């Protein structure tokens, strides 16, 4: 800001939010403090802005965590292995993959929508195992694997494609870990499996 701005009440008034967040330089901060000394209404406004800042900072915005990291690693791996093809051909491949994903998603939904317990991931529910399936896995492969380990899908997919599955029989922790290992062994179907 110019020296002239630092003497202008309107210019100083616009700096109040940045006075509250502590980002002004020394000259600006000093000018705002002088402005506030003679302006009780502006001091009330500063209190309001501090409350607003507190509210914004208290909001729990969450995190993608480890599953976001896995998705990122997967995308990086794809860029490294992506063959040099023409953009037109690449778009055609991407469109086909998207179509396949939609068809597969529809098949999966038809299977799981009859489950009364179906809900979006993150809404709640008991402990289980979180799984990300490979995009290339078919519905038949997923169904077969889940039957093999005695699991059913309880919720999902979440924002990152995470499903929560529950085991049909109550198991000790050691047995649950065996199930997770079994899921991970089938890497053509499951890209990630972790204890929920």
């Amino acid at each position, binding site marked *: 800001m110019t020296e002239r701005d630092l003497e202008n009440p*309107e210019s100083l*008034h*616009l*700096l109040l*939010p*940045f006075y*509250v*967040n*502590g*980002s*002004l330089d020394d000259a600006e901060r000093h000018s705002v403090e002088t402005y506030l000394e003679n302006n009780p*209404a502006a001091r*009330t*406004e500063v*209190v*309001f*802005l501090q*409350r*607003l*800042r507190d*509210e*914004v*900072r208290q*909001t729990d*915005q*969450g*995190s*993608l965590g480890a599953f*976001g*990291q896995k*998705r*990122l*690693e997967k*995308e*990086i791996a794809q*860029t490294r292995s992506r063959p040099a093809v023409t953009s037109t051909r690449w778009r055609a491949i991407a469109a086909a993959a998207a179509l396949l994903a939609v068809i597969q998603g529809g098949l999966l939904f038809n299977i799981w929508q009859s489950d009364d317990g179906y809900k979006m991931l993150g809404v709640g529910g008991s402990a289980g195992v979180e799984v990300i399936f490979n995009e290339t896995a078919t519905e038949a492969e997923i169904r077969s694997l889940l039957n093999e380990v005695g699991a059913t899908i309880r919720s999902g997919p979440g*924002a*990152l494609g995470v499903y929560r599955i529950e085991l049909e029989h109550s198991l000790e922790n050691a047995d649950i870990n065996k199930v997770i290992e079994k899921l991970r062994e089938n890497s053509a179907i499951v890209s990630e499996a972790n204890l929920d």
Partner: protein
Amino acid sequence: MTDHESDNELIARIADGNEGAMTSFYQAHESRVYAFALRKLNDPHAAADIVIETMMAVWNGAGSFKGQAKVTTWLFGIAHRKSIDALRKRGRHMAEELDFDIVDDSADFTAALEASENSDRLRQCLDGLSEAHKEVVHLAFFEDLSYPEIATIVECPEGTVKTRVFHAKKMLRQCLERLKRG
């Protein structure tokens, strides 16, 4: 080593294709980018996509980072552009600036201050702001960024940032007063 130096070091290693550096960078910043995108888009699925797209842009573009701004300013600038793209795909546009008279804002904040003691009311009014106003409020109060940094991120003049925060504050005051009156 400060966070600023640490980020620059990570970006240099990412530019060399170091995936471990990318993981460290993701772990350090993903929740901040997610919070930024979620505040702006109000959609956790879209916000998750913005985080991944932004991090991929860092992975692919680290070599072009010149170090003229802080790494986080560059990072939020990418997230800002990705968010605008997402809004365009939804058929929405960032709100146009309205020409408010700054002198008109001499109104007493006492009523709004009393109303803001109710956290639910304040959050409701915050949620009601436009994407452009939510964005500057988030950068100013969640990230505590200066107005020159915000101007770089949202690619507009510094004066626009100041008036945009001013307008957001004015709308919040009016919203709180309205809710208080019932």
